[in-house]
């Protein structure tokens, strides 16, 4: 057998030599790696954290903004409710007064000339009664508040103007009532007896006038409410779009991170 060069032999033998590490070798290394990387997080983790913070801040600001808007809306609703109640009340008063006048008229035709003082007193009593009904009506008004909200939003922008408008309407109503009462007075002065048909006609005219006014006003409110409605829809869809875009980006980042980790 030919002699072997020691150093070549050693090199050959050692070149391909493999020694199996112990079973827990990788676990030890992994633990060390975790420790090491805990100290020095890779850059992408910081990017991910920064992106999340920006996202959270954005969403939070959206919510706060919305809350503000809702608060304002509620405030306006409260402001507006009272005039509406007044309106309802006034129309109720009108109705009861009409009834009253009718009743008095019936009595009058049966018995004696009208005692206007008495009529006025009873009308005041009716007003008091109406006040006691106010609480109930308020409840109804609150229930209706949600339905009325859209129509009311236009008013919300200019509450003072509209409150004065409502007050005007009230004034109009009371002037109508005065008008009718004056007309009855006038008739009484001219003739000692006033027929029920005549008073009915007067009242019907007054009611028709008021109804026409109301219809005209209602149409106006509807138009602006419609506009408001569209604006609300637009704003809503824009917000939805922003949220959708945010959601897409988040899922993209998440997929990228997951893929990278695989």
């Amino acid at each position, binding site marked *: 057998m030919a002699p072997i060069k020691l150093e070549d032999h050693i090199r050959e033998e050692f070149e391909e030599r*493999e*020694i199996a590490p112990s079973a827990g070798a990788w676990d030890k290394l992994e633990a060390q790696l975790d420790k090491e990387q805990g100290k020095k997080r890779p850059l992408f983790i910081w990017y991910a954290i920064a992106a999340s913070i920006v996202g959270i801040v954005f969403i939070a600001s959206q919510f706060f903004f919305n809350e503000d808007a809702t608060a304002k809306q509620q405030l306006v609703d409260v402001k507006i409710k009272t005039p509406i109640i007044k309106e309802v009340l006034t129309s109720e008063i009108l109705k009861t007064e009409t009834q009253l006048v009718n009743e008095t008229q019936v009595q009058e035709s049966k018995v004696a000339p009208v005692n206007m003082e008495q009529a006025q007193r009873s009308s005041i009593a009716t007003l008091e009664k109406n006040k006691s009904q106010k609480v109930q009506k308020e409840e109804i008004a609150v229930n209706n508040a949600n339905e009325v909200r859209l129509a009311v939003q236009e008013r919300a922008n200019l509450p003072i103007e509209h409150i004065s408008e409502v007050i005007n309407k009230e004034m109009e109503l009371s002037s109508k009532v005065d008008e009718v009462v004056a007309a009855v007075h006038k008739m009484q002065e001219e003739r000692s007896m006033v027929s029920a048909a005549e008073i009915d006609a007067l009242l019907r005219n007054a009611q028709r006038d008021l109804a026409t006014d109301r219809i005209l006003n209602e149409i106006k409110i509807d138009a602006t409410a419609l506009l408001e409605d569209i604006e609300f829809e637009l704003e809503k869809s824009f917000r939805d779009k922003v949220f959708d875009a945010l959601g897409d980006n988040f899922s993209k980042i998440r997929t990228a991170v997951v893929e990278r980790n695989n």
Partner: protein
Amino acid sequence: MKLISLHKNYNKLIAKAVKGNRRAQQELFELFAPKMMGVCRKYMKNNDLAEEVMLTGFLKVFTNLETFNDLGSFEGWIRRIMVNESISQLRKEKKLRFEDETALDTQEHATYIESKLEVDEIQNLIDALPAGYKTVFVLYVIEGYKHSEIAELLHITEGTSKSQLSKARKMLQTRLTQENKISYGTH
């Protein structure tokens, strides 16, 4: 062909491992750990010490993986890290002491043996050498480092490197002579 495909696989694994992917890191570890255990074992006295050094070496491999460029061999890169880690461990243990001396006899004759030695036999021979001799011998004979490189690595002069090698060789020769393994036949 096989080599090329293997190399490509490394690149994919390396790319994933750079980003901190644990599975890729584990795969690379399992591919190279046994070989690197062999590298470290040449410098360290037993398998446990070798494994400790090998793990520290791999920790450096994975934390500095982004500095590895595709131009060199990945295995060569890891191996260099393992060698450096072994030496720094020996230095920590203060086992590397070199008497600064000039080469005694650089005109040495190669040693010949009659029959092949088992790996364990060779390992025993090397383990018996003092750390300084052993390190220079392994670096020069097995890893193929030049004296200038060894001098730089061990912070010694080239002369010292040469004299350490010469002493290591003589020691091995003596041992093999005692065991009647040396061939004195014609060569």
